[in-house]
């Protein structure tokens, strides 16, 4: 059975089903509250959810089983008495050691947990990074929204920050360095581009089978790195627009990536035709995949956390949630698609687990 944790503007929806048919809503949590992200940690089975109460602020909640009471994680806050307050948690990622969990948020912060997400501490090195004064919030805020752990090596992490570019650590977050070479921010004057750090990364995804390879959806541009995120090559040629938000990959194929372009001007899918674009040659060519997706009048957007996968290779499943409240899925790696759910609230995130 495949489980989808769907974070929406009005709560967390748990959907269960098999690819090819409508999924059942088997649970609702945090009803009425914005759930910005929810995931099941593959190493522990624990479910963690980022909820931004309009009244009481942002928190991470966790439950070892859906149906258990939720517990608020401790330590998800900025230093008391400072000039800033935590606005939102954008992403939660677990390492494969069964203990380490990271959470990224606004204003450009990373929290780390060594007990599976029960308690967190602010990553001081990123918080005090010398380049921070040169980071700039985009329309969604100043967010650490992408966390790409290196499989089997918890010391190596890549982050995507809007707009603070790519940050890399080789020592478990004790220090951070930029990984922006080759990224071209065309929203800045020519003269400013080479030294800019306020790079508006939209999403970052690592190829698990070849961890030095990452794919990046930029604010205008799709990029690939083959050196762990230090430098980047533009691979956006062949897409209908190089603007978009989410990226995912087939873990069995390090040459694979899937994106959902939207138009630069409108921020909806081009021409109302909802398509997932796939590469199987590391970005040299792109192929549209839309069999079963709406062919017209679909003026929707898919946000950066709302596209995920389960399985790999011949068993690759893909799922994404749209601003329209629909969840679409594919049980055959994107060749054909089905509608897994309709009429949910606007979708912020979709995370997928294959449950046995």
């Amino acid at each position, binding site marked *: 059975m495949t489980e989808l944790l769907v974070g929406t503007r009005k709560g967390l929806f748990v959907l269960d089903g098999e690819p090819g048919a409508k999924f059942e809503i088997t649970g609702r949590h945090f009803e009425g509250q914005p759930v910005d992200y929810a995931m099941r940690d593959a190493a522990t089975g624990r479910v963690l959810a980022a909820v931004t109460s309009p*009244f*009481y602020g942002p928190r991470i909640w966790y439950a070892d089983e859906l149906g258990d009471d939720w517990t608020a994680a401790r330590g998800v806050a900025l230093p008391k*008495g400072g000039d800033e307050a935590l606005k939102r948690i954008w992403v939660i990622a677990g390492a494969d050691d069964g203990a380490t969990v990271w959470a990224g948020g606004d204003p450009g912060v990373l929290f780390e947990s060594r007990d599976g997400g029960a308690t967190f501490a602010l990553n001081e090195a990123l918080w005090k990074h010398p380049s921070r004064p040169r980071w700039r919030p985009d329309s969604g805020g100043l967010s650490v929204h992408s966390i790409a752990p290196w499989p089997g090596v918890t010391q190596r992490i890549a982050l995507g920050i809007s707009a603070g570019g790519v940050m890399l650590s080789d020592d478990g977050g004790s220090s951070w360095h930029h990984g922006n070479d080759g990224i071209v921010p065309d929203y800045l004057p020519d003269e400013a581009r080479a030294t800019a750090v306020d790079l508006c990364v939209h999403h970052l995804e690592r190829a698990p089978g070849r961890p030095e390879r990452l794919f990046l959806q930029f604010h205008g541009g799709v990029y690939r790195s083959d050196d762990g995120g230090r430098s980047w090559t533009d691979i956006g040629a062949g897409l209908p627009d190089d603007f978009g938000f989410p990226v995912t990959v087939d873990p069995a194929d390090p040459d694979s990536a899937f994106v959902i372009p939207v138009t630069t001007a409108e921020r909806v899918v081009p021409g109302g035709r909802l398509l997932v674009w796939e590469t199987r040659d590391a970005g040299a060519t792109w192929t549209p995949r839309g069999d079963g997706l709406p062919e017209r009048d679909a003026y929707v957007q898919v946000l950066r956390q709302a596209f995920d996968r389960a399985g790999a290779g011949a068993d690759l499943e893909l799922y994404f949630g749209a601003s329209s409240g629909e969840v679409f899925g594919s049980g055959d790696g994107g060749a054909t698609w089905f509608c897994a759910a309709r009429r949910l609230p606007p979708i912020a995130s979709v995370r997928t687990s294959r449950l046995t």
Partner: protein
Amino acid sequence: MAVVRLRGQLEKLAGGREHRVDGDTVNDVLHALESELSALEGWILDERGVLRRHINVFVSSEPADPETPVGADDQVEILPAISGG
């Protein structure tokens, strides 16, 4: 000591609706409340010590702000604001 009255999620976190708290102003009372009831830390005041935007405070039924004086016989009510969509 003023009486602070909580409802809903705050009441649940605090383990009760009414709490006697010292303080000369709303700001003092809220800081003292979070200090005495650690389960409330961060729920009413953010990390800066600022009252969260969508929480309303009333002192003896009158809308109050952080600088509003609080007397020993006052009731301080903390309520979610009218907001959302």
